[in-house]
């Protein structure tokens, strides 16, 4: 019975010109979005490869100089595009891509790709994730809203029930037919991308993320489909079902994201760039503890080596001084940057939980997470760059410490020291960490799937004409 029902539903959809028109519009939009995203990510990847390689060459090719001059000479860390940035660029265009790693300071990252977008930025970008998250649900609403309410309105439901058709199985067949239509649209595209990733020898993590993205889309669209069927089963007319479902869609994709974001920013305020710098500098200026530590260490060294002046030590005290100053500042940087990023993440978490009211919020949070284009990934990159900066400073300060001035001549380091400083290599956080970081979004979407399912299980067997 279910196979017959599915076949009939698909036959009707195939003969419905409006469905073809919607699919054609969606197809053109999807193709355009995919091509544009692919092109953008390819450009970003090429720029990242060229910049990263050039930066290491620049570091290795520098002249002989004092290690502290090299520390100020600095290195740029470049953030690679997210593993699935072509699917969901998320915050990528709006987040900085480079960090200058130098002595004394944890710099804020620089240069946002959106700077290159010019006026186009005001219109936003149509991405594959927006098509899946915002436009496909609209297609589902238009096709699924009349699925049951239309049959009730037309009177065919009455005839079917009079035929002894079990209403629960009939609703199941309706759902399967619509799910088959969606799967027929999306599965080939998903498999095509998976094949491209395999052929291009993409890392296993990227493949796992693509698999998880497929599951996320199935969860989200499955929830939307079940919601549509539930509302359709409860509505006396197609008009009512459409009105309710279009309202749900509009709130979820158009109204809630902006409103909840405003609320999240109000609930978890973050300082402006100027305020942040002011507060950071104020804390960095307090060096009384550092001075005391330096004085203690100097006295210990003078006593241990039995000399009166720091210049007489067999080590260069400047190396210790510089490293101690770095370590003193680490705590200040960690506290300020930690608070700033925690504020952003608290806003992000709130957005995920508000997916209870607007599932698009939860979908877009999880989707950008899996694509590696969200705040969690950005913070991971910024933290990795800072860790690298600290390793770099330690290596250079250690070299200063081991090489005291000889006859008033400062130590000059060469390529052998530059080569000891490790190259900055960044890899995105693991899929497990991404999923646990987006647990609220996944929980909310699971709820969005289960709630209408339970509603349908209750309503479908008692379906009335």
């Amino acid at each position, binding site marked *: *019975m279910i196979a017959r029902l599915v076949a*009939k539903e698909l*036959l*009707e959809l195939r003969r419905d010109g409006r469905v073809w028109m919607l699919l054609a519009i969606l197809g053109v939009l999807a193709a355009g979005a995919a091509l544009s995203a692919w092109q953008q990510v390819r450009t970003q990847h090429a720029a990242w490869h060229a910049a990263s390689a050039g930066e290491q060459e620049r570091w290795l090719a520098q002249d002989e100089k004092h290690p502290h001059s090299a520390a100020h000479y600095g290195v740029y860390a470049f953030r690679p595009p997210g593993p699935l940035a072509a699917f969901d660029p998320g915050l990528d265009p709006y987040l900085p891509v480079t960090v200058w790693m130098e002595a004394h300071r944890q710099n804020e990252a620089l240069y946002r790709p959106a700077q290159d977008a010019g006026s186009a930025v005001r219109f936003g970008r149509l991405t594959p994730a927006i098509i899946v998250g915002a436009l496909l649900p609209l297609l589902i609403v238009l096709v699924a809203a009349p699925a049951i309410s239309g049959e009730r309105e*037309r009177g065919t439901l009455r*005839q079917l*029930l*009079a*035929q002894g058709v079990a209403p629960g199985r009939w609703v199941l067949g309706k759902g399967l037919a619509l799910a088959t239509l969606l799967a027929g649209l999306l599965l080939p595209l998903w498999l095509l991308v998976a094949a491209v990733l395999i052929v291009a020898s993409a890392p296993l993590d990227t493949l796992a993320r693509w698999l998880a993205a497929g599951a996320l889309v199935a969860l989200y669209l499955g929830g939307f489909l079940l919601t549509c069927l539930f509302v359709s089963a409860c509505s006396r007319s197609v008009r009512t079902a459409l009105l309710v479902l279009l309202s749900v869609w509009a709130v979820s994709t158009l109204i809630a994201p902006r409103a909840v974001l405003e609320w999240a920013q109000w609930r978890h305020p973050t300082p402006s760039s100027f305020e942040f710098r002011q507060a950071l500098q104020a804390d960095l200026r307090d060096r009384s503890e550092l001075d005391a530590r330096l004085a203690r260490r100097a006295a210990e060294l003078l006593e241990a080596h039995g000399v009166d002046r720091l210049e007489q030590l067999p080590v260069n005290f400047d190396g210790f001084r510089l490293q101690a100053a770095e370590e003193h500042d680490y705590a200040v940087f960690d506290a300020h940057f930690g608070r700033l990023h925690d504020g952003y993440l608290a806003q992000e978490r709130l957005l995920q939980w508000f997916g209870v009211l607007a599932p698009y919020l939860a979908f877009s949070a999880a989707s950008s997470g899996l694509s590696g284009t969200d705040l969690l990934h950005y913070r991971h990159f910024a933290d990795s760059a800072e860790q690298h900066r600290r390793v770099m400073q330690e290596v250079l300060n250690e070299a200063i410490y081991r090489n005291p001035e000889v006859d008033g001549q400062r130590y000059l380091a060469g390529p052998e020291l530059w080569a000891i400083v490790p190259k900055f290599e960044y890899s995105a956080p693991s899929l497990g960490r991404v999923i646990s970081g987006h647990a609220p979004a996944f929980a909310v979407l699971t709820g969005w799937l289960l709630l209408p399912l339970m509603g349908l299980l209750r309503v479908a067997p008692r379906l009335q004409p």
Partner: protein
Amino acid sequence: MAASDAGGHCPLELIGLRKRFGPVQALAGLDLRVGAGECYALLGPNGAGKTTALNILLGFLQPDAGTARIAAVDVQADPDRARRNLAYIPEQVQLYPRLSGLENLAYFHGLGASEAMADAQLRDCLRQAGLTDTAHDRRVHTYSKGMRQKVGIAIALARRAPVMLLDEPTSGLDPEAAFELNNSLRDLAARGVTILMATHDLFRAREVASRIGILVAGRLQQEVDPASVGGAELESLYLAAVRDLLGRAS
């Protein structure tokens, strides 16, 4: 007297059926038994309770009191099993406009029946209902109301159910199709099918029914043997019953 089975049950039974919609008493203790091979025509003015009775038999409405049974199955207790024993033709047959007549029949039959029917058998049902061969594969949105009605009749015929319910079955049919439908109903009754037909059409009812009940204000006012009355006499009886009750009510 309706023919009953060994357990004393008729294939179609309404016992003390009562149903009220707010201030309106739609059924006021309707008792009706229709035996195997009987064709019962339920006549009555609009609002008499005919459709309410059919809806209760179809399991779409719960009565306030009384029992409805189809093939000895209590409709309220097990509507799905009761429906498996009946075929139904509504006043306005609704079909899927993007499917052909044959595809509609195959779909409705396929969902409701335990056994599938071959294409040829389905076409036979359409022919039996009066739909010409050239129309079988045409999409239903090109059909007239009468043609859609014929597909509805074919759906009911294909069910081969022991009980058939018809709600104004000849509405929208041309005289020839109505004549064919009457022949089909007579044929079905001869094969032992129990038929309950709610109608306004006194003359068609007289032609096909073995018993006629006049329903007014939710109660069976009179039963008539159509073999013993002429058309004009049936009309007089009907009008008298309706006017008598409505006169008393006013």
